[in-house]
């Protein structure tokens, strides 16, 4: 009898959906589908809006803007080559520094160097580096970092000025402080993805390496690094993507000077910083040219990010 009752009760809970339920289900499905479509349309709309505004500039000044080197609103000459150069140069410098540190820290955190608790603390510290807003890094760069590295820069400039990288003195803002801050900002990205790559190495490989009698670093350099190489490369490319699009720290530290120089102490400019500085006061033609610069930046970052995502996908690391 009791069994029968409970069966009846369960039947009363599990019943076929009513027509109203089905209708609600339909509506819910359509609603979610609409928003799924919206994200595709949003991206298309962003590309259309920025691209559309850039067309007048391309019509008027042609693609020569890409190789022009002067930016003069009054003379109506616009060239963004120095900015393209500055964007790539600062990002590459940041990538070399941040990548080197990021991968080393990933090794340090995944190869049993530290007790568990210290590992967690260090990982949190590195992750918190990514949480600090870039404008705060900019402020810190202006008032803390630049005064500290100035004597170092002067030393390199006076003693090694024959090397093109040190051919000018650091007069305040410049490429080096900007790249240094940028490298701090991409370090967490590189470190996090590289850690995933190291963790994805099968235990058997690690054990086989140690079983052969390797020292810790022989195992790391000859076995782990090559095995994780794909993921690390993906991490570096995504870090580069992040550096290319970074704006505030660069706008505050890079010096906003329209020149192409190999010297790391010379002031320079980047596409994102150009946008940040010139947009608020720009007239109509200038806006169009700035939209063109935005397009170039968009194209570069899209390419780099897609490449990075593709590499990560290929290596099969779960993010």
């Amino acid at each position: 009898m009791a069994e029968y009752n409970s069966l009846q009760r369960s039947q009363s809970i599990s019943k076929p959906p009513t027509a109203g339920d089905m209708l609600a289900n339909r509506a819910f499905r359509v609603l979610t589908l609409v928003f799924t479509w919206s994200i595709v349309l949003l991206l298309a709309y962003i590309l259309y809006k920025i691209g559309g505004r850039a067309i007048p500039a391309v019509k008027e000044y042609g693609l020569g803007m890409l190789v022009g080197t002067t930016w003069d609103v009054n003379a109506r000459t616009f060239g963004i080559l120095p900015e393209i150069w500055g964007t790539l140069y600062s990002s590459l410098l940041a990538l070399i520094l941040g990548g080197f540190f990021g991968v080393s820290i990933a090794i340090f955190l995944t190869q049993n160097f530290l007790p568990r608790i210290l590992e967690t603390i260090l990982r949190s510290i590195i992750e918190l580096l990514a949480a600090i807003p870039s404008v705060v890094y900019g402020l810190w760069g202006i008032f803390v970092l630049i005064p500290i590295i100035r004597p170092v820069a002067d030393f390199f400039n006076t003693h090694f000025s024959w090397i093109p990288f040190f051919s000018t003195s650091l007069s305040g803002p410049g490429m080096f402080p900007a790249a240094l801050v940028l490298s701090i900002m991409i370090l967490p990205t590189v470190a996090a993805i590289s850690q995933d790559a190291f963790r994805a190495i099968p235990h058997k490989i690690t054990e086989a390496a140690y079983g052969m009698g390797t020292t810790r670093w022989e195992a790391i350099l000859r076995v782990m690094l090559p095995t994780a190489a794909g993921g690390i490369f993906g991490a570096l490319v995504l870090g580069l993507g992040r550096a290319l699009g970074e704006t505030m720290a660069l706008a505050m530290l890079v010096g906003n000077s329209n020149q192409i120089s190999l010297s790391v102490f010379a002031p320079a400019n980047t596409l994102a910083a150009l946008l940040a500085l010139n947009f608020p006061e720009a007239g109509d033609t200038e806006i169009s040219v700035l939209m063109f610069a935005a397009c170039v930046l968009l194209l570069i970052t899209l390419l780099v990010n897609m490449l990075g995502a593709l590499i990560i996908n290929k290596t099969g690391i779960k993010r």
Partner: protein
Amino acid sequence: MSEQASQKNEFHLPNLERQPFEPRALQSIILSTLTFCMAIIACIPLFSVLIMLLYRGGKRITFEVFYALPSTAFDVGGGFGNAIVGTLFMVGIASLISVPFGILAAIYLAELAPESKIATVASFCAKVLSGLPSILAGVFAYAAVVLLMGSYSAWAGGIALAILMVPTVMLTAEEAIKMVPQPMKEAAAGMGCTPAQAMLKIILPVAVPGIITGVVLAVARAAGETAPLLFTALFSDYWLRPNEPTASLAVLIYNYSGMPFPNQIELAWAASLVLVLLVFILNLISRAIGRRKTV
């Protein structure tokens, strides 16, 4: 014969002795020390930033900075109450837009039709959007909202921030929904739930901690963003009026850091301290929720 065997043995036995100072052991020690040093060096910026914020910003933090308006150039005193309100307002708008947007799209992607073509395309678009430089979100909001409304406004700033938040919310919500155990989903369907009922009554409540983690992280990121607000919300010395230029903490820091007046620079440090505290607290909240989730 026995001689041959022992020779063979010697040939096969590797040298198992390890000297503490043979080159490869030394290499290992040196490299370990190097990485240790690099890890220490990598921690320096965080502590340097925090100490400077506490030292230079902490000096200037008084009760006044939270409710006063910015002072004029040569004046002393003043605060950034309007910037705090502006930041909260714009992040609020951005959350109101991006949270429902992201979660609804994630539901479709993760549960309703994960294999469909549109799901693949949308998920790709979300990944592309998550790599969008933040300044380009500002450029877009300028072209789409500011030019349309004819004025810089808090709305434009909020929309620019929303564009940056949507992919984060969506991708983390998708992961959280996928993490809900399959038996639960099947049990709901077996009881006669429609997919919508299963989602709203069973799956979403279980996935909520994961979703909130993502939302809080996105909010923390948006609160610190400067570039998208530079020419959408601009800046203002007055209290919030949503249809006009609006102050925010991030833009205030940027504007004041370039000024030659010590009072403004002090205010920039104080504002940085407030902003970093806000972002860190949000990060801690999201970690706490993320750790507590049981699924």
